[in-house]
């Protein structure tokens, strides 16, 4: 059985969830919300926190997976259709972060822009992770936590002296409409609740599991909010141009003039965590395909990884269009799949709690 532990879900929320929001998300948020970016982020976190809480509530009441819940209520065919749709959703949700990460690796880690083929090995890693299923997500979370804590702490400490937190003032400076738009147009970065939702039935609900998971989620949120605050503190009015935010914030430390960019060591470390995080929606996508078609993961994993690789090549010069599409046009898709459908799961027949 594809199992994951509560501890690993906690680690996922505390370490992998924040890592996904450190490249293009801050600039996208700043574009609308400006210095009120923290409020936009808080709205998203509250909504996503609701989905995480709902998952834990359902996990407490039933040991069924989401597939079994739908099947129990509407029948097997409906469950397969819903899972097929979710497979498409997670495939799409993986695409923009994948392009972000590809651009990050190519722009920050190479002096000259390398061939796109330099990013190809990721798809082998992704394929391997997809074949291994949810168990590997747990392992990924176990590995990611210490890497994330160390790298994030060092990078933030390096950024603190250059951050002027007064730049976040005034609180009422941006109209509420723009703050809400900022939330809405960045909702595609908040699919972690939906990912946790698909762990339903794949972990044993233990004593105080909800408290542990929600506390971990709060820790992850705090890390993102701290990061966003420092990011805006460092760049203020020019924050909107700072793509690959995490790689920019720590480079102003004076000692680097003689030592060189030692912060890159920690950026590499964080990049590894980001790579792990990128695999997870693809893994869930493959999981959905497998449940939908009733097949083993090997072939779907190969097809999905190859399709993503092909799209990465095809969309190599279309990042801006892709970003506009996902943030400004497809936000309702994310609202439906990442929030509404999981919330509707509360209405599904839970049946008898299995022993």
């Amino acid at each position, binding site marked *: 059985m594809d199992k994951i532990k509560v501890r690993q879900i906690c680690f996922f929320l505390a370490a992998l969830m924040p890592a996904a929001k450190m490249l293009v998300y801050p600039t996208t948020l700043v574009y609308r919300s400006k210095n009120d970016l923290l409020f936009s982020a808080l709205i998203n976190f509250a909504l996503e926190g609701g989905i995480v809480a709902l998952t834990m509530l359902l996990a407490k009441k039933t040991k069924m997976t989401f597939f079994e819940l739908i099947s129990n209520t509407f029948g097997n065919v409906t469950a397969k259709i819903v899972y097929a749709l979710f497979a498409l959703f997670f495939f799409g949700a993986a695409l923009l972060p994948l392009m972000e990460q590809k651009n990050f690796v190519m722009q920050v880690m190479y*002096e000259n822009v390398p061939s796109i083929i330099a990013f*190809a*090995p990721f798809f*082998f890693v992704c394929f391997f992770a997809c074949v291994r299923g949810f168990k590997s997500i747990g392992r990924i979370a176990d590995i990611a936590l210490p890497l994330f804590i160390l790298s994030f702490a060092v990078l933030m400490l390096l950024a603190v002296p250059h951050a002027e937190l007064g730049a976040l003032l005034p609180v009422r*400076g941006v109209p509420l409409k723009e703050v809400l738009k900022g939330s809405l147009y960045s909702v595609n970065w908040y699919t972690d609740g939906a990912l946790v939702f698909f762990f339903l039935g794949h972990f044993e609900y233990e004593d105080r599991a909800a408290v542990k998971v929600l506390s971990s989620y709060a820790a992850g949120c705090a890390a993102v909010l701290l990061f966003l605050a420092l990011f805006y503190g460092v*760049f203020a009015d*020019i924050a909107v*141009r700072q793509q690959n935010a995490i790689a920019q914030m720590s480079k102003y430390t004076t000692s680097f003039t003689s030592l060189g960019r030692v912060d890159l060591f920690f950026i590499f470390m964080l990049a590894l965590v980001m790579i792990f995080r990128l695999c997870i929606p693809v893994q869930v996508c493959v999981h959905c395909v497998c449940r939908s078609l009733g097949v083993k993961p090997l072939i779907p994993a190969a097809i999905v990884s190859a399709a993503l690789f092909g799209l990465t090549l095809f969309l190599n010069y279309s990042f801006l269009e892709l970003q506009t599409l996902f943030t400004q046009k497809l936000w309702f898709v994310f609202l439906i799949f990442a929030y509404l459908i999981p919330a509707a799961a509360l209405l599904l027949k839970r049946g008898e709690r299995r022993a």
Partner: protein
Amino acid sequence: MHKLWTRIFACAVGLLLLLFFSNDFGLIDIQETAIVVALGIDAAENGEGYDVTAQIAVPASTGSGSAGNVAVKNAKTVGEAITMLNHETGWYPTLVHCKLVLLGEKVTEKDVFETLDYFLRNDGVEDSCLVAVCEGTARQMFQAQSPVNDISASAITKVLSSEAQKSGIVAVNILKDFAKQYYSVSESGFLPYISVKSEADSQGGENAQPVFAGQNLCYRENAQPVFARQNLCRGENAQPVASEDLRRQKTSADSPFLKKNKRWRPKREPLPISAAATEGGAGGSGGQQKNGDGNADIFQADKTMLFYKGKRAALLDADETLAYNLADTDTGFAFGNVTMDEDGTPVTYTLKMKISKKKQKLFFENGMPVFTFDIRANARISDADKADSILGIAKTLLVDEKILHAAEEKFREELLSVFTRSAAAGCDVFALRQKLYRHHFGKYEKFKDTLLDSVQVRCRITFTSLK
């Protein structure tokens, strides 16, 4: 089946290794690349556009590299000039190592972000690079021969070091911070103003001091030497050594000094600073260390240019720059002179000031804006231009109240002068509008246009010493 997957996996690994090792590891081919260490931007001498000078490092096997200047004239944009560099030299210019962008004086007559935005659009140049304005043209500035470094851009970078900033003599700015200032609601910023002085000029003045080997000294006409950096070549606490003295110590390997001190060993590879000083002292040919007149050029950056909406607004002199640094930047300690009348004779004291508090606040009193500077510093006498008694020298940590008051008064005058001069030019160098926007947002619309004229400035400056 298992064997098949093992083979597929081995093939995949082989393919990846092939890709990895066939890319020269993404390294730059040094033979085809121009490593640009600094860019100078001048208004075109003839016609429209810009003259862009790139200082390109020429690595040498001896370890002491030099640099060549390549100029592109009449480019419409900086981006075009960079492209033309490739056409004219056949080298592909890499800007990753560009640590300095130098603007010619004429460029500042227009919005400097007409040119600087190139560096914000492109990640080729790190936004942590230094930006400065120079007297005359950047091209001439790059041609100057510094005794500190063979590469003039490196010599300028040394003058603009963070240590110089901390001692208050130079108001250093990097591209990111200058852009932040420009795009803020204050639309005002500052850049250090670089001028070059030949060694002959600096020695020729009646009251000017001789050039020291350390080269970490900045000069003002008729003033005491001011230490920009303390780390002279003989150690942090050592006194500066004149070039001639240093030359004697370095070159006289069999001097009595060495014979008595067996543990002392001359450096196998003397510091370039020492070498330059030696050549200067010996009056040799000088080579690259000299300008056309046979004298080395010394870069000065003790003036500061203020900008409003990207255009030149005012030029602060050395004293005003020091006052501005003490009030607004990262300066933690500084040296300053104060002249007192003692028994009918003017006596100049050099005070060393350690800033213990610096705070600025904008608030409203009776509906009108008030801006306060609250600055506290501990002062001690570093030197005086009189022969003091041994007791006076022993009590150098104790500064007379009169001297402290005189210093406070001088500092207040300079600070108010900075404010008045910048405000007169519309420049909001203390970011009052930004403070208004952030902390008094409700009053922003009402006061944003009249703030600099209507604000009342109060200075609470307190210098103390050991008692």
